[in-house]
Protein backbone atom coordinates (compact mmCIF):
# COMPACT_ATOMS: atom_id res chain seq x y z
CA UNK A 1 0.00 0.00 0.00
CA UNK A 2 1.38 3.41 -0.89
CA UNK A 3 1.67 5.92 1.89
CA UNK A 4 1.22 9.58 1.10
CA UNK A 5 3.92 11.73 2.72
CA UNK A 6 3.41 15.40 3.46
CA UNK A 7 5.55 18.00 1.58
CA UNK A 8 7.20 18.92 4.92
CA UNK A 9 8.25 15.30 5.53
CA UNK A 10 9.62 15.09 2.00
CA UNK A 11 11.59 18.30 2.52
CA UNK A 12 12.94 17.01 5.86
CA UNK A 13 14.05 13.80 4.18
CA UNK A 14 15.84 15.74 1.40
CA UNK A 15 17.64 17.87 3.99
CA UNK A 16 18.72 14.75 5.91
CA UNK A 17 20.00 13.10 2.69
CA UNK A 18 21.95 16.24 1.73
CA UNK A 19 23.41 16.50 5.25
CA UNK A 20 24.49 12.82 5.17
CA UNK A 21 25.98 13.33 1.72
CA UNK A 22 27.99 16.33 2.95
CA UNK A 23 29.15 14.38 6.04
CA UNK A 24 30.28 11.52 3.79
CA UNK A 25 32.14 13.98 1.57
CA UNK A 26 33.93 15.51 4.58
CA UNK A 27 34.73 12.07 6.02
CA UNK A 28 36.29 10.90 2.73
CA UNK A 29 38.07 14.21 2.05
CA UNK A 30 39.47 14.84 5.51
CA UNK A 31 40.00 11.13 6.22
CA UNK A 32 43.16 11.20 4.17
CA UNK A 33 46.36 12.14 5.95
CA UNK A 34 47.84 13.58 2.75
CA UNK A 35 45.00 16.12 2.54
CA UNK A 36 45.77 17.39 6.04
CA UNK A 37 49.51 17.53 5.28
CA UNK A 38 49.22 19.29 1.92
CA UNK A 39 46.33 21.44 3.17
CA UNK A 40 48.70 22.74 5.85
CA UNK A 41 51.29 23.54 3.17
CA UNK A 42 48.68 25.58 1.25
CA UNK A 43 47.67 27.30 4.49
CA UNK A 44 51.35 28.02 5.20
CA UNK A 45 51.70 29.61 1.77
CA UNK A 46 48.62 31.76 2.36
CA UNK A 47 49.96 32.93 5.73
CA UNK A 48 53.36 33.63 4.12
CA UNK A 49 51.78 35.70 1.34
CA UNK A 50 49.45 37.70 3.59
CA UNK A 51 51.91 38.38 6.42
CA UNK A 52 55.07 38.69 4.27
CA UNK A 53 56.09 42.14 5.64
CA UNK A 54 55.99 40.79 9.21
CA UNK A 55 57.52 37.37 8.48
CA UNK A 56 60.42 38.43 6.24
CA UNK A 57 63.56 38.97 8.37
CA UNK A 58 64.99 41.58 5.93
CA UNK A 59 63.84 44.00 3.23
CA UNK A 60 63.68 41.79 0.06
CA UNK A 61 64.59 44.75 -2.20
CA UNK A 62 67.54 46.10 -0.17
CA UNK A 63 70.83 45.48 -1.93
CA UNK A 64 74.15 45.24 -0.09
CA UNK A 65 77.12 44.86 -2.40
CA UNK A 66 79.45 44.09 0.53
CA UNK A 67 77.45 40.91 1.27
CA UNK A 68 76.91 39.29 -2.13
CA UNK A 69 76.53 35.50 -2.58
CA UNK A 70 76.87 34.76 1.14
CA UNK A 71 76.31 31.15 2.30
CA UNK A 72 73.53 30.42 4.84
CA UNK A 73 74.29 32.04 8.21
CA UNK A 74 72.47 33.15 11.38
CA UNK A 75 71.82 36.58 9.89
CA UNK A 76 70.76 35.30 6.47
CA UNK A 77 69.25 31.83 6.97
CA UNK A 78 69.37 30.92 3.24
CA UNK A 79 72.23 33.24 2.29
CA UNK A 80 72.20 36.24 -0.06
CA UNK A 81 71.96 36.66 -3.86
CA UNK A 82 74.36 38.33 -6.30
CA UNK A 83 73.14 41.79 -5.18
CA UNK A 84 73.39 40.99 -1.47
CA UNK A 85 69.61 40.66 -0.96
CA UNK A 86 68.32 38.21 1.65
CA UNK A 87 67.15 35.02 -0.11
CA UNK A 88 64.66 33.92 2.57
CA UNK A 89 62.91 37.30 2.55
CA UNK A 90 62.67 37.20 -1.25
CA UNK A 91 61.21 33.67 -1.13
CA UNK A 92 58.60 34.81 1.42
CA UNK A 93 57.64 37.77 -0.78
CA UNK A 94 57.71 35.53 -3.88
CA UNK A 95 54.71 33.61 -2.53
CA UNK A 96 52.61 36.77 -3.02
CA UNK A 97 53.16 36.83 -6.79
CA UNK A 98 52.51 33.10 -7.14
CA UNK A 99 49.28 33.33 -5.20
CA UNK A 100 48.13 36.55 -6.91
CA UNK A 101 48.75 35.22 -10.42
CA UNK A 102 47.25 31.84 -9.52
CA UNK A 103 44.02 33.23 -8.10
CA UNK A 104 43.40 35.97 -10.70
CA UNK A 105 44.18 33.77 -13.70
CA UNK A 106 42.29 30.67 -12.58
CA UNK A 107 39.21 32.60 -11.36
CA UNK A 108 39.04 34.55 -14.62
CA UNK A 109 39.52 31.44 -16.77
CA UNK A 110 36.92 29.50 -14.76
CA UNK A 111 34.38 32.34 -15.04
CA UNK A 112 34.76 32.73 -18.83
CA UNK A 113 35.08 28.98 -19.48
CA UNK A 114 32.06 27.98 -17.40
CA UNK A 115 29.91 30.64 -19.07
CA UNK A 116 30.98 29.60 -22.60
CA UNK A 117 30.63 25.88 -21.81
CA UNK A 118 27.16 26.48 -20.38
CA UNK A 119 26.06 28.40 -23.48
CA UNK A 120 27.64 25.88 -25.91
CA UNK A 121 26.13 22.86 -24.16
CA UNK A 122 22.66 24.32 -23.66
CA UNK A 123 22.18 26.23 -26.93
CA UNK A 124 23.77 23.52 -29.15
CA UNK A 125 23.75 23.81 -32.98
CA UNK A 126 25.76 26.64 -34.56
CA UNK A 127 26.67 28.30 -31.23
CA UNK A 128 28.11 25.00 -29.96
CA UNK A 129 30.00 24.42 -33.24
CA UNK A 130 31.60 27.87 -33.19
CA UNK A 131 32.62 27.70 -29.51
CA UNK A 132 33.87 24.10 -29.83
CA UNK A 133 35.98 24.75 -32.94
CA UNK A 134 37.60 27.85 -31.43
CA UNK A 135 38.28 25.81 -28.28
CA UNK A 136 39.92 23.07 -30.42
CA UNK A 137 42.09 25.68 -32.12
CA UNK A 138 43.25 27.32 -28.88
CA UNK A 139 44.10 23.90 -27.40
CA UNK A 140 46.43 23.30 -30.37
CA UNK A 141 48.67 26.13 -29.09
CA UNK A 142 51.14 24.86 -26.49
CA UNK A 143 50.61 27.07 -23.40
CA UNK A 144 54.18 28.40 -23.20
CA UNK A 145 54.29 29.19 -26.93
CA UNK A 146 51.01 31.09 -26.67
CA UNK A 147 52.36 32.99 -23.66
CA UNK A 148 55.48 33.92 -25.64
CA UNK A 149 53.34 35.29 -28.48
CA UNK A 150 51.28 37.30 -25.98
CA UNK A 151 54.55 38.44 -24.43
CA UNK A 152 55.56 39.79 -27.84
CA UNK A 153 52.29 41.75 -28.00
CA UNK A 154 51.96 42.98 -24.40
CA UNK A 155 55.61 43.01 -23.31
CA UNK A 156 56.92 41.36 -20.15
CA UNK A 157 54.99 41.52 -16.88
CA UNK A 158 52.40 39.99 -14.59
CA UNK A 159 49.45 40.76 -16.87
CA UNK A 160 51.11 38.96 -19.80
CA UNK A 161 51.19 35.80 -17.67
CA UNK A 162 47.58 36.31 -16.51
CA UNK A 163 46.21 36.92 -20.03
CA UNK A 164 48.17 33.93 -21.38
CA UNK A 165 46.77 31.75 -18.61
CA UNK A 166 43.23 32.99 -19.24
CA UNK A 167 43.49 32.04 -22.91
CA UNK A 168 45.27 28.78 -22.16
CA UNK A 169 42.99 27.57 -19.35
CA UNK A 170 39.56 28.63 -20.68
CA UNK A 171 39.24 25.73 -23.20
CA UNK A 172 39.49 23.08 -20.43
CA UNK A 173 36.62 24.70 -18.52
CA UNK A 174 34.57 25.00 -21.73
CA UNK A 175 35.03 21.31 -22.52
CA UNK A 176 34.30 20.05 -19.00
CA UNK A 177 31.27 22.33 -18.54
CA UNK A 178 29.88 21.55 -21.99
CA UNK A 179 30.14 17.81 -21.30
CA UNK A 180 28.39 18.20 -17.96
CA UNK A 181 25.59 20.32 -19.44
CA UNK A 182 25.02 17.79 -22.26
CA UNK A 183 24.63 15.06 -19.64
CA UNK A 184 22.30 17.05 -17.37
CA UNK A 185 20.16 19.00 -19.83
CA UNK A 186 17.94 16.02 -20.73
CA UNK A 187 16.97 15.52 -17.05
CA UNK A 188 13.31 15.69 -16.03
CA UNK A 189 13.76 18.72 -13.84
CA UNK A 190 15.16 20.71 -16.77
CA UNK A 191 12.18 19.66 -18.93
CA UNK A 192 9.90 20.64 -16.05
CA UNK A 193 11.53 24.08 -15.86
CA UNK A 194 11.02 24.54 -19.63
CA UNK A 195 7.35 23.51 -19.31
CA UNK A 196 6.62 26.03 -16.56
CA UNK A 197 8.05 28.73 -18.83
CA UNK A 198 11.40 29.48 -17.16
CA UNK A 199 13.67 31.69 -19.27
CA UNK A 200 16.83 30.25 -20.86
CA UNK A 201 19.04 32.37 -18.62
CA UNK A 202 17.18 31.15 -15.51
CA UNK A 203 17.46 27.48 -16.59
CA UNK A 204 21.19 27.86 -17.22
CA UNK A 205 22.05 29.79 -14.07
CA UNK A 206 19.58 28.36 -11.57
CA UNK A 207 19.21 24.73 -12.68
CA UNK A 208 22.14 23.68 -14.88
CA UNK A 209 25.04 25.54 -13.25
CA UNK A 210 24.62 24.21 -9.67
CA UNK A 211 24.25 20.64 -10.97
CA UNK A 212 27.39 20.77 -13.11
CA UNK A 213 29.75 22.53 -10.71
CA UNK A 214 31.51 19.58 -8.93
CA UNK A 215 34.13 18.85 -11.62
CA UNK A 216 34.71 22.59 -12.00
CA UNK A 217 35.67 22.85 -8.30
CA UNK A 218 38.21 20.02 -8.78
CA UNK A 219 39.57 21.61 -11.96
CA UNK A 220 39.86 24.98 -10.20
CA UNK A 221 41.97 23.51 -7.38
CA UNK A 222 44.25 21.61 -9.76
CA UNK A 223 44.62 24.61 -12.06
CA UNK A 224 45.94 26.73 -9.20
CA UNK A 225 48.98 24.45 -9.27
CA UNK A 226 49.16 24.67 -13.07
CA UNK A 227 49.01 28.49 -12.94
CA UNK A 228 51.71 28.76 -10.26
CA UNK A 229 53.95 26.44 -12.31
CA UNK A 230 53.29 28.44 -15.50
CA UNK A 231 54.01 31.76 -13.76
CA UNK A 232 57.30 30.37 -12.44
CA UNK A 233 58.24 29.01 -15.89
CA UNK A 234 57.47 32.30 -17.68
CA UNK A 235 59.29 34.33 -15.04
CA UNK A 236 62.24 31.94 -15.45
CA UNK A 237 62.22 32.68 -19.20
CA UNK A 238 62.13 36.41 -18.47
CA UNK A 239 58.68 37.29 -19.77
CA UNK A 240 56.87 36.97 -16.46
CA UNK A 241 56.85 39.20 -13.44
CA UNK A 242 59.52 41.91 -13.33
CA UNK A 243 60.49 44.19 -10.46
CA UNK A 244 58.99 42.03 -7.71
CA UNK A 245 60.51 38.84 -6.24
CA UNK A 246 59.23 35.83 -8.20
CA UNK A 247 60.29 32.22 -7.58
CA UNK A 248 60.88 31.48 -11.29
CA UNK A 249 63.02 34.59 -11.86
CA UNK A 250 65.01 33.75 -8.72
CA UNK A 251 65.82 30.26 -10.09
CA UNK A 252 67.00 31.90 -13.32
CA UNK A 253 69.24 34.36 -11.50
CA UNK A 254 70.67 31.60 -9.30
CA UNK A 255 71.57 29.45 -12.34
CA UNK A 256 74.57 31.69 -13.06
CA UNK A 257 75.91 31.13 -9.51
CA UNK A 258 75.33 27.36 -9.21
CA UNK A 259 78.91 26.71 -8.13
CA UNK A 260 79.16 29.60 -5.63
CA UNK A 261 75.72 29.18 -3.98
CA UNK A 262 73.40 26.47 -5.38
CA UNK A 263 70.78 27.41 -2.75
CA UNK A 264 69.90 30.49 -4.86
CA UNK A 265 68.28 28.19 -7.46
CA UNK A 266 67.40 25.19 -5.30
CA UNK A 267 65.32 26.92 -2.60
CA UNK A 268 62.84 28.91 -4.75
CA UNK A 269 62.40 25.92 -7.13
CA UNK A 270 61.66 23.63 -4.17
CA UNK A 271 58.94 26.09 -3.06
CA UNK A 272 57.29 25.86 -6.50
CA UNK A 273 57.44 22.05 -6.37
CA UNK A 274 55.95 21.88 -2.89
CA UNK A 275 53.07 24.27 -3.57
CA UNK A 276 52.16 22.73 -6.95
CA UNK A 277 52.30 19.25 -5.41
CA UNK A 278 50.04 20.44 -2.57
CA UNK A 279 47.38 21.80 -4.95
CA UNK A 280 47.55 18.63 -7.12
CA UNK A 281 47.15 16.31 -4.13
CA UNK A 282 44.30 18.28 -2.59
CA UNK A 283 42.63 18.46 -6.03
CA UNK A 284 42.98 14.68 -6.41
CA UNK A 285 41.42 14.08 -3.00
CA UNK A 286 38.62 16.54 -3.76
CA UNK A 287 37.84 14.70 -7.00
CA UNK A 288 37.69 11.36 -5.22
CA UNK A 289 35.47 12.76 -2.47
CA UNK A 290 33.06 14.49 -4.87
CA UNK A 291 32.77 11.60 -7.33
CA UNK A 292 30.76 8.73 -5.76
CA UNK A 293 32.38 6.20 -8.14
CA UNK A 294 35.88 7.13 -7.01
CA UNK A 295 35.26 7.42 -3.27
CA UNK A 296 38.23 5.76 -1.58
CA UNK A 297 39.45 4.14 -4.81
CA UNK A 298 42.94 5.59 -4.78
CA UNK A 299 43.47 5.80 -1.10
Amino acid sequence: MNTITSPKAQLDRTVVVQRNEFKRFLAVFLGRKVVIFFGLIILGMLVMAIFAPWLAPHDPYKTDLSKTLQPPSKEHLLGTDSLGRDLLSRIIYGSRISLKVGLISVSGAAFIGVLLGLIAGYMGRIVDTIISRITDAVIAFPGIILALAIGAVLGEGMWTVIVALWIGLVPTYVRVMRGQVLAVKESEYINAAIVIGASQARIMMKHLLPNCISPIIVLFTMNLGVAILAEASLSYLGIGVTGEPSWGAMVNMGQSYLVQNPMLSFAPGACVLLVVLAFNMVGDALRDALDPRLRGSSR
Partner: protein
Amino acid sequence: MTQYIVQRVIQTLVVILILSVICFFLMHLLPGDPALSLLGEEPTQEEIERVRAELGLDRPVIVQYFSWLADAVRGDLGTSIKYREDVTSLILHRLTPTLHIGVVSFVISVVLGVAAGVIASIRRGGWLDSLITISANLGMAVPNFWLGILGIYFFSLYLGWLPVQGYVSPAEDFWESTKRIIMPCLVLGCSSMAGLARQTRSSMLEVIRQDYIRTAKAKGLKRKVVLYKHALKNAVIPVITLCGLMLPNIIGGSVIIEQVYNINGIGRLMLTAVFDRDIIVVQGCLIMISITVALANLLVDISYGYFNPRIRYR
Protein backbone atom coordinates in the same frame (compact mmCIF):
# COMPACT_ATOMS: atom_id res chain seq x y z
CA MET B 1 37.35 3.84 -40.77
CA THR B 2 37.76 5.85 -44.03
CA GLN B 3 34.76 8.00 -43.11
CA TYR B 4 36.25 8.56 -39.66
CA ILE B 5 39.64 9.59 -41.14
CA VAL B 6 38.01 11.96 -43.69
CA GLN B 7 35.94 13.53 -40.91
CA ARG B 8 39.01 14.09 -38.73
CA VAL B 9 41.05 15.51 -41.65
CA ILE B 10 38.28 18.06 -42.40
CA GLN B 11 38.06 19.02 -38.71
CA THR B 12 41.85 19.47 -38.57
CA LEU B 13 41.79 21.71 -41.68
CA VAL B 14 39.13 23.90 -40.03
CA VAL B 15 41.24 24.08 -36.86
CA ILE B 16 44.35 25.03 -38.89
CA LEU B 17 42.37 27.79 -40.62
CA ILE B 18 41.20 29.18 -37.26
CA LEU B 19 44.81 28.92 -36.00
CA SER B 20 46.02 30.99 -38.94
CA VAL B 21 43.41 33.68 -38.18
CA ILE B 22 44.43 33.76 -34.48
CA CYS B 23 48.18 33.86 -35.34
CA PHE B 24 47.77 36.66 -37.87
CA PHE B 25 45.49 38.93 -35.85
CA LEU B 26 47.29 38.31 -32.53
CA MET B 27 50.49 39.63 -34.07
CA HIS B 28 48.67 42.59 -35.62
CA LEU B 29 47.64 43.73 -32.13
CA LEU B 30 51.30 44.52 -31.50
CA PRO B 31 51.79 48.19 -30.70
CA GLY B 32 54.22 49.98 -33.03
CA ASP B 33 54.90 49.83 -36.74
CA PRO B 34 57.04 47.01 -38.22
CA ALA B 35 58.22 49.52 -40.87
CA LEU B 36 59.71 51.66 -38.07
CA SER B 37 61.44 48.59 -36.58
CA LEU B 38 63.00 47.89 -39.99
CA LEU B 39 64.14 51.45 -40.65
CA GLY B 40 65.77 52.11 -37.29
CA GLU B 41 66.23 55.62 -35.89
CA GLU B 42 64.44 58.71 -37.26
CA PRO B 43 63.33 57.67 -40.76
CA THR B 44 61.62 60.19 -43.05
CA GLN B 45 57.89 59.99 -43.78
CA GLU B 46 58.60 58.93 -47.41
CA GLU B 47 60.87 56.11 -46.26
CA ILE B 48 58.20 54.87 -43.86
CA GLU B 49 55.54 54.95 -46.58
CA ARG B 50 57.85 53.17 -49.05
CA VAL B 51 58.63 50.33 -46.61
CA ARG B 52 54.97 50.07 -45.58
CA ALA B 53 54.06 49.68 -49.27
CA GLU B 54 56.85 47.09 -49.75
CA LEU B 55 55.59 45.08 -46.78
CA GLY B 56 52.00 45.46 -47.95
CA LEU B 57 51.00 47.20 -44.71
CA ASP B 58 49.12 49.95 -46.59
CA ARG B 59 46.46 47.47 -47.72
CA PRO B 60 43.27 46.55 -45.78
CA VAL B 61 43.88 43.99 -42.97
CA ILE B 62 41.70 41.32 -44.63
CA VAL B 63 43.70 41.60 -47.87
CA GLN B 64 46.92 41.41 -45.82
CA TYR B 65 45.63 38.23 -44.10
CA PHE B 66 44.79 36.41 -47.35
CA SER B 67 48.07 37.47 -48.93
CA TRP B 68 49.98 36.23 -45.83
CA LEU B 69 47.99 32.96 -45.89
CA ALA B 70 48.70 32.41 -49.61
CA ASP B 71 52.45 32.99 -48.99
CA ALA B 72 52.42 30.74 -45.91
CA VAL B 73 50.80 27.89 -47.86
CA ARG B 74 53.67 28.18 -50.39
CA GLY B 75 56.18 28.00 -47.49
CA ASP B 76 57.01 31.72 -47.40
CA LEU B 77 56.64 33.00 -43.83
CA GLY B 78 58.18 36.42 -44.48
CA THR B 79 61.54 38.02 -43.69
CA SER B 80 62.94 38.46 -40.19
CA ILE B 81 63.29 42.09 -39.06
CA LYS B 82 66.40 41.32 -36.98
CA TYR B 83 68.26 38.70 -39.05
CA ARG B 84 67.09 40.05 -42.49
CA GLU B 85 66.72 36.39 -43.43
CA ASP B 86 63.88 34.21 -44.68
CA VAL B 87 61.86 33.01 -41.61
CA THR B 88 61.22 29.56 -43.14
CA SER B 89 64.94 28.89 -43.54
CA LEU B 90 65.63 30.30 -40.04
CA ILE B 91 63.13 27.81 -38.63
CA LEU B 92 64.41 24.92 -40.78
CA HIS B 93 68.00 25.55 -39.60
CA ARG B 94 66.89 25.20 -35.99
CA LEU B 95 64.48 22.32 -36.56
CA THR B 96 66.97 19.45 -36.02
CA PRO B 97 67.76 19.96 -32.29
CA THR B 98 64.10 20.65 -31.40
CA LEU B 99 62.83 17.64 -33.36
CA HIS B 100 65.63 15.36 -32.13
CA ILE B 101 65.08 16.16 -28.46
CA GLY B 102 61.27 16.20 -28.83
CA VAL B 103 61.04 12.79 -30.53
CA VAL B 104 63.53 11.07 -28.19
CA SER B 105 61.79 12.59 -25.18
CA PHE B 106 58.36 11.46 -26.46
CA VAL B 107 59.59 7.88 -27.02
CA ILE B 108 61.32 7.72 -23.61
CA SER B 109 58.25 9.03 -21.80
CA VAL B 110 55.85 6.63 -23.57
CA VAL B 111 58.05 3.56 -23.00
CA LEU B 112 59.01 4.31 -19.39
CA GLY B 113 55.64 5.83 -18.44
CA VAL B 114 53.56 2.90 -19.73
CA ALA B 115 55.99 0.34 -18.27
CA ALA B 116 55.88 2.05 -14.85
CA GLY B 117 52.06 2.19 -14.97
CA VAL B 118 51.79 -1.52 -15.84
CA ILE B 119 54.25 -2.51 -13.07
CA ALA B 120 52.37 -0.36 -10.52
CA SER B 121 49.04 -1.94 -11.45
CA ILE B 122 50.40 -5.49 -11.27
CA ARG B 123 52.01 -4.81 -7.88
CA ARG B 124 49.05 -2.81 -6.55
CA GLY B 125 49.44 -1.94 -2.86
CA GLY B 126 53.10 -3.05 -2.75
CA TRP B 127 56.17 -0.89 -2.19
CA LEU B 128 56.87 -0.68 -5.93
CA ASP B 129 53.34 0.69 -6.54
CA SER B 130 53.83 3.28 -3.77
CA LEU B 131 57.23 4.28 -5.14
CA ILE B 132 55.89 4.70 -8.69
CA THR B 133 52.79 6.61 -7.51
CA ILE B 134 54.83 9.00 -5.35
CA SER B 135 57.37 9.54 -8.16
CA ALA B 136 54.54 10.19 -10.64
CA ASN B 137 52.96 12.79 -8.34
CA LEU B 138 56.33 14.49 -7.90
CA GLY B 139 57.02 14.28 -11.66
CA MET B 140 53.78 16.10 -12.45
CA ALA B 141 54.50 18.92 -10.02
CA VAL B 142 58.21 19.52 -10.55
CA PRO B 143 59.16 22.63 -12.58
CA ASN B 144 61.21 21.29 -15.52
CA PHE B 145 63.58 24.28 -15.56
CA TRP B 146 64.45 23.57 -11.91
CA LEU B 147 64.85 19.84 -12.54
CA GLY B 148 67.16 20.70 -15.45
CA ILE B 149 69.30 22.90 -13.19
CA LEU B 150 69.43 20.17 -10.50
CA GLY B 151 70.56 17.74 -13.22
CA ILE B 152 73.31 20.12 -14.37
CA TYR B 153 74.49 20.59 -10.77
CA PHE B 154 74.63 16.88 -9.83
CA PHE B 155 75.46 15.06 -13.09
CA SER B 156 77.66 17.68 -14.74
CA LEU B 157 79.23 19.91 -12.09
CA TYR B 158 79.35 17.53 -9.08
CA LEU B 159 79.78 14.06 -10.65
CA GLY B 160 81.17 15.20 -14.00
CA TRP B 161 79.36 12.42 -15.87
CA LEU B 162 77.61 14.52 -18.53
CA PRO B 163 78.39 17.73 -20.44
CA VAL B 164 76.84 20.89 -18.94
CA GLN B 165 75.12 22.41 -21.99
CA GLY B 166 74.96 22.57 -25.78
CA TYR B 167 73.93 20.33 -28.67
CA VAL B 168 75.85 18.17 -31.12
CA SER B 169 74.13 16.59 -34.13
CA PRO B 170 74.08 12.76 -34.12
CA ALA B 171 75.41 12.83 -37.69
CA GLU B 172 78.54 14.63 -36.41
CA ASP B 173 79.30 12.51 -33.34
CA PHE B 174 76.64 10.03 -32.20
CA TRP B 175 78.11 9.28 -28.75
CA GLU B 176 78.69 12.95 -27.88
CA SER B 177 75.23 13.81 -29.18
CA THR B 178 73.63 11.11 -26.99
CA LYS B 179 75.57 12.30 -23.92
CA ARG B 180 74.37 15.85 -24.51
CA ILE B 181 70.70 15.10 -25.10
CA ILE B 182 70.05 12.43 -22.49
CA MET B 183 69.50 14.91 -19.64
CA PRO B 184 67.35 17.41 -21.64
CA CYS B 185 65.21 14.52 -22.96
CA LEU B 186 64.58 13.01 -19.53
CA VAL B 187 63.79 16.42 -18.01
CA LEU B 188 61.48 17.37 -20.90
CA GLY B 189 59.66 14.04 -20.75
CA CYS B 190 59.39 13.95 -16.95
CA SER B 191 55.86 15.32 -16.52
CA SER B 192 54.52 13.38 -19.53
CA MET B 193 56.09 10.20 -18.19
CA ALA B 194 54.45 10.82 -14.82
CA GLY B 195 51.05 11.49 -16.40
CA LEU B 196 51.30 8.35 -18.54
CA ALA B 197 52.30 6.19 -15.56
CA ARG B 198 49.26 7.40 -13.59
CA GLN B 199 46.88 6.97 -16.53
CA THR B 200 48.19 3.50 -17.44
CA ARG B 201 47.96 2.37 -13.82
CA SER B 202 44.38 3.51 -13.37
CA SER B 203 43.18 2.19 -16.73
CA MET B 204 44.90 -1.17 -16.16
CA LEU B 205 43.20 -1.44 -12.74
CA GLU B 206 39.87 -0.58 -14.38
CA VAL B 207 40.32 -3.20 -17.14
CA ILE B 208 41.55 -5.94 -14.79
CA ARG B 209 38.16 -5.79 -13.00
CA GLN B 210 36.20 -6.47 -16.24
CA ASP B 211 34.31 -9.71 -16.89
CA TYR B 212 36.30 -10.67 -20.00
CA ILE B 213 39.53 -10.69 -17.98
CA ARG B 214 37.89 -13.05 -15.45
CA THR B 215 36.74 -15.22 -18.36
CA ALA B 216 40.26 -15.27 -19.82
CA LYS B 217 41.65 -16.31 -16.42
CA ALA B 218 38.90 -18.95 -16.03
CA LYS B 219 39.81 -20.39 -19.43
CA GLY B 220 43.20 -21.16 -17.93
CA LEU B 221 45.24 -18.65 -19.95
CA LYS B 222 48.68 -17.79 -18.63
CA ARG B 223 48.90 -14.65 -16.45
CA LYS B 224 51.22 -12.96 -18.94
CA VAL B 225 48.82 -13.59 -21.85
CA VAL B 226 45.88 -12.22 -19.82
CA LEU B 227 47.82 -9.14 -18.77
CA TYR B 228 49.57 -8.18 -21.98
CA LYS B 229 47.24 -9.55 -24.68
CA HIS B 230 43.86 -8.83 -23.11
CA ALA B 231 44.28 -6.21 -20.39
CA LEU B 232 47.02 -3.93 -21.77
CA LYS B 233 45.51 -3.85 -25.27
CA ASN B 234 42.29 -2.40 -23.86
CA ALA B 235 43.94 -0.27 -21.20
CA VAL B 236 46.08 1.47 -23.81
CA ILE B 237 43.10 3.25 -25.46
CA PRO B 238 42.83 6.16 -22.97
CA VAL B 239 46.63 6.23 -22.84
CA ILE B 240 46.70 7.09 -26.57
CA THR B 241 44.44 10.08 -25.90
CA LEU B 242 46.90 11.23 -23.26
CA CYS B 243 49.78 10.84 -25.75
CA GLY B 244 47.98 13.37 -27.96
CA LEU B 245 47.64 15.77 -25.05
CA MET B 246 51.34 15.31 -24.20
CA LEU B 247 52.54 16.70 -27.52
CA PRO B 248 51.81 20.39 -26.80
CA ASN B 249 53.56 19.94 -23.44
CA ILE B 250 56.67 18.48 -25.05
CA ILE B 251 56.78 21.13 -27.80
CA GLY B 252 56.08 23.96 -25.33
CA GLY B 253 58.53 22.55 -22.80
CA SER B 254 61.28 22.56 -25.44
CA VAL B 255 61.43 26.40 -25.13
CA ILE B 256 62.40 26.04 -21.47
CA ILE B 257 64.74 23.09 -21.99
CA GLU B 258 66.56 24.85 -24.85
CA GLN B 259 67.03 27.85 -22.56
CA VAL B 260 68.30 25.76 -19.61
CA TYR B 261 70.70 23.69 -21.76
CA ASN B 262 71.68 26.47 -24.17
CA ILE B 263 70.42 24.68 -27.29
CA ASN B 264 69.71 26.65 -30.46
CA GLY B 265 66.32 25.25 -31.41
CA ILE B 266 63.00 26.73 -32.51
CA GLY B 267 61.96 27.50 -28.92
CA ARG B 268 65.05 29.61 -28.33
CA LEU B 269 64.61 31.32 -31.72
CA MET B 270 61.08 32.31 -30.70
CA LEU B 271 62.13 33.48 -27.23
CA THR B 272 64.87 35.68 -28.69
CA ALA B 273 62.41 37.03 -31.26
CA VAL B 274 59.98 37.96 -28.45
CA PHE B 275 62.67 40.04 -26.72
CA ASP B 276 63.73 41.60 -30.06
CA ARG B 277 60.06 42.29 -30.97
CA ASP B 278 60.72 40.47 -34.27
CA ILE B 279 57.03 39.75 -34.92
CA ILE B 280 57.52 38.06 -38.28
CA VAL B 281 59.67 35.36 -36.62
CA VAL B 282 57.28 35.04 -33.66
CA GLN B 283 54.34 34.69 -36.07
CA GLY B 284 56.22 32.12 -38.18
CA CYS B 285 57.22 30.01 -35.16
CA LEU B 286 53.70 30.25 -33.71
CA ILE B 287 51.98 29.02 -36.89
CA MET B 288 54.57 26.27 -37.54
CA ILE B 289 54.37 24.93 -33.98
CA SER B 290 50.57 25.06 -33.79
CA ILE B 291 50.15 23.32 -37.16
CA THR B 292 52.62 20.63 -36.02
CA VAL B 293 50.55 20.08 -32.88
CA ALA B 294 47.29 19.97 -34.89
CA LEU B 295 48.76 17.41 -37.35
CA ALA B 296 50.23 15.32 -34.53
CA ASN B 297 46.80 15.30 -32.87
CA LEU B 298 45.29 14.12 -36.16
CA LEU B 299 47.75 11.20 -36.23
CA VAL B 300 46.88 10.36 -32.61
CA ASP B 301 43.15 10.44 -33.44
CA ILE B 302 43.65 8.12 -36.42
CA SER B 303 45.70 5.69 -34.33
CA TYR B 304 42.97 5.92 -31.69
CA GLY B 305 40.51 4.74 -34.35
CA TYR B 306 42.89 1.93 -35.27
CA PHE B 307 43.26 0.68 -31.68
CA ASN B 308 39.59 1.13 -30.76
CA PRO B 309 37.34 -1.06 -32.95
CA ARG B 310 34.22 0.72 -31.64
CA ILE B 311 35.39 3.79 -33.57
CA ARG B 312 36.76 1.84 -36.54
CA TYR B 313 33.50 0.05 -37.33
CA ARG B 314 31.12 2.88 -36.44
